[in-house]
């Protein structure tokens, strides 16, 4: 070596050494979350300067940065050594390592995750971390693997999108061929559109990809990404097709999104069809951010069906509004009482200071008013208990809150273990405490058959008892077990038991326990005829198989309770199994109560398949008018069958 070269070589060696070691990958830090001082629940210590703690996204970014610095083999080794259960603190870190590994070796990472899932259900983001890069490499392999993880369809959009980064045309052809993926293909098409708008739009024009739900997204993307090609794409969609309709709706939404004020001005000049398309996005926009006066004048210019639709949008948005906006919308001029009532149904987040206004408004609401009242009081009792109890007392005294609402509220609060329930009942006027106490007694008896039920059984009338039972059973039907329901019913006095059978939602498994009690009540004549009728009818409906139900009715003592339930059960049998129904009816005396009605049901069931048999049965109807009517029915049915296409 020439001495003159020594300094040059030394400098080169220095530089090489410097860069090699400076860039040498660091070992990953496993502890990403700095240790915190324990904090008590109520009183967080004040003032002290703590180190910055990364938020969840920050931890993810940090973890990804660290994982990016490791080699694939390091990532693989870390994951393969992982043993469940996984500490939640380290979840972000391991996810990043898994992503790093899967980015280079998606097959191996997927196979590892399959093994892992034998012991612990993998989090959705873990499945996504391995399947998304796998889809980018080989879509079919990703779908095969997804079958193992029991993956839901909703995520196929991201796999198609990943596959489109490698082969957009092939991915869209796949989505076209397998129609269950076509509606998820919007993001994949976007990838293609961004890369090669000419080819993507040409494929759309020439092909037959017309899935309407994906078309909405696709047209919106073309309008933003390749507006110059929009006209050609629209022209290729056949007039009157659902794809064209979806596209036009999508364009209307884009227009409103871009400039709501201009869209509002334009709205009045549109044709009826175009108005309908723009109505949805415009109504949504106005409901979310329009001034009340602006909304009122918009509503005033709408036709009845349009107004109904726009009010529905407003109703949805009200539940998201803050208290001030909520009030200003509820007080909007020009609303009818029913319209205003319907808006109040979603305004249950108002505070207790507006209780009077809420209760007055909700009176004109529809079928969900009862739930709204419940939500209003339960929500406010949780947020502002003292103010709410004062308001509730005053509303109850004034008759604005009825007994049934109080019972439903008691049920809800007791099931959720609310601490304010006891105080709430005490805060009520004394004359209004019986209902809530009856509900508490029912709850007690459902969990402990020995519990005292007198607060319920002592209620003054049937209506009150029915309200109490409704509030306990109607909202959470499936909550109580069969044994609890039947134990409660058997615990009641005979007359009240029959009442309750009509109110408590029963299933087939309840039948065996209750049938003897009902039969006994009929035999001993210990209840009113109406109660017995209703109880037998209700109980017979719990039996799925109508011939079993009919057998049970046959076993009951003669009388109105049995006779009134028979035709309904027979009707079910006639529809399901006409032959058995015929055999049963033949075995009964012709004087059996309700025979004409039962024959009519049988005839209706067989008229199409066996007109001769139907005619024979119809002739046995004793009431002349009915007989004539049923025979006419058979004739019409026969004519229809004769002219029907073969």
């Amino acid at each position, binding site marked *: *070596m020439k001495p003159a070269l*020594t300094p040059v*070589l030394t400098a080169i*060696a*220095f530089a090489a*050494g*410097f860069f090699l*070691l400076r860039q040498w990958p660091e070992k990953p830090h496993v502890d990403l979350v700095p240790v*915190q001082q*324990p*904090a*008590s*629940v109520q009183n*967080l*210590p004040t003032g*002290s300067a703590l*180190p*910055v*703690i*990364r*938020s*969840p*996204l920050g931890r993810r*970014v*940090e973890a990804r*940065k660290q994982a*990016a610095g490791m080699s694939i083999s390091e990532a693989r080794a870390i994951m393969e050594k992982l043993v469940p*259960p996984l500490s*939640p603190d380290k979840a972000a870190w391991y996810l990043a390592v898994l992503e790093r590994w899967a980015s280079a070796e998606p097959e191996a990472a997927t196979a590892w995750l399959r093994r892992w899932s034998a012991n*612990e*259900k993998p989090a959705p983001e873990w499945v996504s971390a391995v399947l998304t890069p796998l889809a980018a490499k080989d879509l*079919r*392999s990703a*779908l095969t693997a997804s*079958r193992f993880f*029991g993956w839901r*369809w909703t995520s196929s959009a991201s796999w198609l999108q990943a596959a489109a980064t490698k082969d957009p045309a092939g991915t869209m052809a796949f989505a076209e061929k397998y*129609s*269950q993926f076509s509606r998820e293909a919007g993001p994949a098409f976007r990838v293609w559109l961004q890369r090669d708008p000419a080819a993507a739009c040409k494929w759309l024009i020439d092909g037959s990809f*017309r*899935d309407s739900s994906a078309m*909405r*997204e696709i047209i*919106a993307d073309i309008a933003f990404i390749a507006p110059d090609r929009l006209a050609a794409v629209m022209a290729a969609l*056949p007039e*009157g*097709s659902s794809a064209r309709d979806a596209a036009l709706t999508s364009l209307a*939404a884009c227009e409103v999104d871009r400039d709501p004020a201009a869209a509002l001005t334009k709205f009045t000049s549109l044709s009826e069809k175009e108005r309908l398309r723009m109505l949805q996005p415009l109504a*949504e*926009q106005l409901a*979310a951010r329009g001034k009340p006066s602006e909304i009122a004048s918009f509503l005033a210019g709408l036709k009845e069906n349009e107004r109904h639709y726009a009010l529905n949008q407003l109703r949805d948005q009200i539940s*998201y509004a803050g208290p001030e*906006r909520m009030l200003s919308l509820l007080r909007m001029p020009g609303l009818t009482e029913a319209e205003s009532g319907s808006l109040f149904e979603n305004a249950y*987040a108002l505070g207790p200071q507006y209780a009077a206004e809420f209760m007055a408004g909700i009176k004109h609401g529809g079928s969900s008013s009862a739930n709204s009242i419940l939500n209003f009081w339960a929500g406010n009792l949780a947020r502002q208990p003292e103010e709410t109890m004062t308001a509730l007392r005053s509303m109850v005294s004034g008759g604005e809150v009825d007994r049934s609402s109080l019972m439903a509220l008691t049920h809800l609060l007791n099931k959720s*273990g609310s601490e304010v329930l006891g105080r709430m009942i005490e805060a009520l006027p004394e004359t209004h405490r019986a209902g809530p106490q009856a509900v508490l007694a029912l709850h007690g008896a459902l*969990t402990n058959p020995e519990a005292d039920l007198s607060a319920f059984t002592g209620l003054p009338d049937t209506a009150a008892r029915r309200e109490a039972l409704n509030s306990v059973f109607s909202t959470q039907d*499936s909550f109580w*077990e069969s044994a609890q329901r039947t134990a409660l019913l058997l615990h009641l006095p005979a007359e009240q038991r029959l009442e309750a059978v009509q109110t408590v939602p029963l299933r087939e498994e309840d039948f065996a326990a209750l049938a003897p009690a009902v039969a006994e009540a009929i035999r001993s004549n210990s209840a009113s005829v109406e109660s017995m009728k209703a109880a037998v009818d209700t109980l017979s409906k719990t039996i799925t198989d109508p011939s079993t139900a009919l057998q049970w009715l046959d076993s009951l003592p003669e009388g109105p309770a049995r006779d009134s339930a028979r035709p309904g059960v027979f009707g079910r049998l006639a529809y399901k199994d006409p032959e058995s129904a015929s055999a049963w009816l033949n075995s009964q005396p012709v004087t059996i109560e309700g025979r004409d009605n039962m024959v009519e049901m049988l005839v209706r069931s067989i008229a199409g398949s066996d007109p001769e048999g139907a005619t024979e049965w119809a002739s046995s109807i004793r009431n002349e008018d009915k007989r004539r009517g049923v025979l006419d029915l058979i004739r019409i049915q026969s004519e229809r069958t004769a002219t029907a*296409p*073969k």
Partner: protein
Amino acid sequence: MKLSHVIPFFGLAAGAATGWLSRGEDTAVPTAKQSKSSAVASAGETNHSRKAASSAAAVSNLKELRALWGDDGAAGIYEQLEGVPAAQLAEWLEEYLPPDVRSYKVERRVREGICQALVERLSESDPAALAAWLRKVPHGYLDYGWMVGAVEGLLNQNSADSAGVLAKLEATHPIAGRIKAEWLAKRDPDAALQLFVSRQDLTMPDGLKAWLAGDPARAKQFAKDHPGRAYPVMAALGDRSLSELQAFVADLKDPADLRYAQPLLLMAAAKEGNAAVFVDLFSRLGVNPIYNSHDDAMLHLVRHHPEAAQTVLHNLENRPALWGRMLGMLAVTQPEQAAALLTSPSAAEFWKTGGNPHDIMRSLNLWAASEPAAAQSWLLALPEELRSKVVPLAWEMAADLPNDDWFSLTGGSRLSGRGLARQALQRSTDPEVLAAWCASFPDRNSRELLLRELRENMKTPQAAENIAARVKEIRKTPPP
């Protein structure tokens, strides 16, 4: 050896030493977008010093931020916000109130993602500003994704003011309390348990679960002291054996506890492949099973104990809906066994009383898309009667058949959804072929649906009308 030969090696060593010593935070291998932003501050940096770094803002408005949405989603946006002043973050968040109402889910996802990134950055740089912004958010607009960032930001702020804001937030948004419990569980499990007990919440923080699972005696005591709330404790013990869980459940009396015990026992039975217990629990499963946990248990059994799964399916006649779902799962991993079950007595109940055919359909179609050849040969090997039941549910299985076979296999059945006519059109535009195929469908409703789809997808309306006329001729029906 001459000295001049050795000197370069000293140079190499010196360079390496200098390089190693100069390693720092900023030498981490950059991610795809890191070049746009300044380095992330170290964990020990204070709020004050972070604010001072704000001059390095890479983004100047929301539009730019939106354009940066990429594969990294919210995480990528978060990175771009490094160094953006808190006032600017708060101003951008302000612009998001109230949020857009445009209903396209992708667009909404982008907006929520940006919002999440803004909230989390603000929670790190200026929690007081975050608290002020949170007070303005209308009820109902708070999204879980960024709620986590907001609540953790307030907890990390650790001041009386932030505790006040948090208390208010908890009163109006129960989810805030859950996030707080999760945060606390990692730091002070006793306090977290106390908080959990005070809240009427069934979801126990993961950290707390792990803590309780490590101490089964404490878990049992908790279940005893708090009837109706044993579910999360049982979930914590989820990896215990079936017999251990059964012993735990035997002491429970509250109906809610017993109801919630069902899915956990079911999963334990699935893990052990215990078909008898599985059938027993399954038959008694409530009408509205909890959290779809029965699905997870079914899937586990099908994947890890396929033979036990078949035993279950042979003995589950009284629950056609659940039977259908489980068969759908088995169809994709064990198609032959599933096919055999399609003709079993349990299947008769399913076809008759209406389990949902879509449960089978979805699984079969996924199989068809992922392994078309296998799915197709399975379909062709089915007995004729069974094939005629399966084809209307899973047309995709026939997707790779030659045209003649495809038309003959899909025709003559009853339509169960949209898309079949479009597929037919991809195979042939011959009006005679399409008309004969449409006419082969026995019910009028199916034919009308097919013709409507053809009208929507054919290039000229007249071509579709001609086919409709030809179908009428073939069926010999009088014009309406």
